């Protein structure tokens, strides 16, 4: 159960749905966007995905149905190459094991498959995201006297460290897209360019943040997340208002 997938599991930080967008539309948009990206990666032969339940699982399964070559689904519960016929309700769903090419134990999953660099794409989400794509899924407020205690890091620190690339799926709000995370549960680009290399992280880090308003990508030079596309009908003002740092747009 990586923190990635619990976009809907973060209580007390739920986002009020703004006028003109329904919750279902937002999720669907994010799923379709993520699935399309996975299809492109699969075509390039780089789509072994580490997925959990929720939007990433839905997106990965959608991509598996739509694209050939299909992405390979790896669930952190131990299933490699699962091909579920229906969407699983939990990462412990029997269907995931029954349709997998291989089922392995948890230590092997994290050591031989994730840590060794065999995962092309990891998914993350959380309660807070900062402009360097660091994520908080641990605590709102101080660690010792939390305002809201969240579930914690789970698989996220090592997904963020070792996956070939990381896709973040989160609803975009000023409360969630913050200047600085209250706690850094997983590392994006740290405090800016060069931090990943300096710390010896082998994975490529975040490449896409897929939101209900559009897509953000890290600027190749500054590593800062920049809005690179917006869904039809979404305005720059909407995006700016939904972001806690001074948001840049790619075509500026």
């Amino acid at each position: 159960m990586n923190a990635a997938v619990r976009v809907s599991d973060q209580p007390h930080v739920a986002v009020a749905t703004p006028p003109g967008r329904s919750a279902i539309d937002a999720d669907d948009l994010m799923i379709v966007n993520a699935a399309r990206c996975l299809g492109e990666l699969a075509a390039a032969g780089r789509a072994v995905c580490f997925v959990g339940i929720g939007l990433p699982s839905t997106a990965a399964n959608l991509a598996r149905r739509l694209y050939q070559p299909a992405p390979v689904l790896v669930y952190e519960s131990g299933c490699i190459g699962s091909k579920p016929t229906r969407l699983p309700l939990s990462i412990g769903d029997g269907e995931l094991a029954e349709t997998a090419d291989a089922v392995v134990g948890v230590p092997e999953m994290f050591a031989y498959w994730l840590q060794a660099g065999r995962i092309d794409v990891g998914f993350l989400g959380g309660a807070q995201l900062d402009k360097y794509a660091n994520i908080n899924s641990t605590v709102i407020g101080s660690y010792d006297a939390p305002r809201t205690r969240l579930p914690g890091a789970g698989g996220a620190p090592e997904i963020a460290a070792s996956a070939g690339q990381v896709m973040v799926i989160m609803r975009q709000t000023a409360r969630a897209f913050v200047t600085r995370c209250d706690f850094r549960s997983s590392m994006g680009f740290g405090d800016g360019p060069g931090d990943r290399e300096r710390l010896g992280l082998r994975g490529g880090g975040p490449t896409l943040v897929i939101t209900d308003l559009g897509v953000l990508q890290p600027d190749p030079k500054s590593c800062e997340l920049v809005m690179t596309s917006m869904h039809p009908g979404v305005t720059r003002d909407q995006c700016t208002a939904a972001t806690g740092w001074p948001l840049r747009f790619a075509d500026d």
Partner: protein
Amino acid sequence: GVLNHLVAELLTLQAAVSSLVTDGLTVSMEGFTHLIPHAEGHEIIRQGRREMHLVRMTPDIIYDQLIGAGCATRLTFSWGGNPGVGSLHRFRDAVENAWPHVLEIEEHSHAGMATRYTAGASGLPFGVLRGYVGTDLPTRTTTITPIVCPFTGEQLTAVPALTPDVTVVHAQRADHDGNVQICGLVGIQKEALLAAKATIVTVEQIVDELPPTPGAIVIPGWALDAVCHVPDGAHPSFAMGYSDRDNAFYRAWDDISTSRDAFIEWINRHILATVDFAEYLRSIGHERGGARV
């Protein structure tokens, strides 16, 4: 094992808990998304254990109940949510409001916990991983420290072995020698068992001979201590081949556990007022599916 070296003893769960699980111990109850040993958690609540150090990657409902019931003063974990539903309210109430009392936490990542159990199972004092780097976890958790590769000079992360006083898991089957077979998602159970000083395994079924099963692992009885026959003992989790995950219960737990009063009433009625797990299952109106293999 501690009770007898060359075999595991077949015991009632009541007897296993009262002989092996005492106040103040470090106890791990594992099962990653599957085979969560809920019957054992209930029995510990029933027997009123206190000041336990609970260890588990995903505390889940099983530890929400133990924490809310006041059994634990310390928790080592990596992800504490109600999977697919939301918060663990009793866990949050303990961490946020110290109710029913202070809960000290030691927080890791999944990979770190897996490394710690593996070190414990291997008889090593620590394990090494590429982990935690760039996160705030090492600033809050003292059991995370850098280590340098003596060959390459590269810096990695070391975590100490987990060696619980008692590890508890649920499995599909055991034979009369206490050899235990786990099928499907095998999770971290083997490592958690082999890392422990004493072990209890609850099983769906006791059989004369373990059927060779694709994807199954077997832990020999001589490496275990107590085996207890508790059908459906993972509920609301599941045992592949025997039961399905009770997703409705996971959702219902959100309501039960949100308020302290509702929680206390539920614990009183369904755990403290029942004599064992079978009666608990009847008390919540749960029908057993029985073996489907």
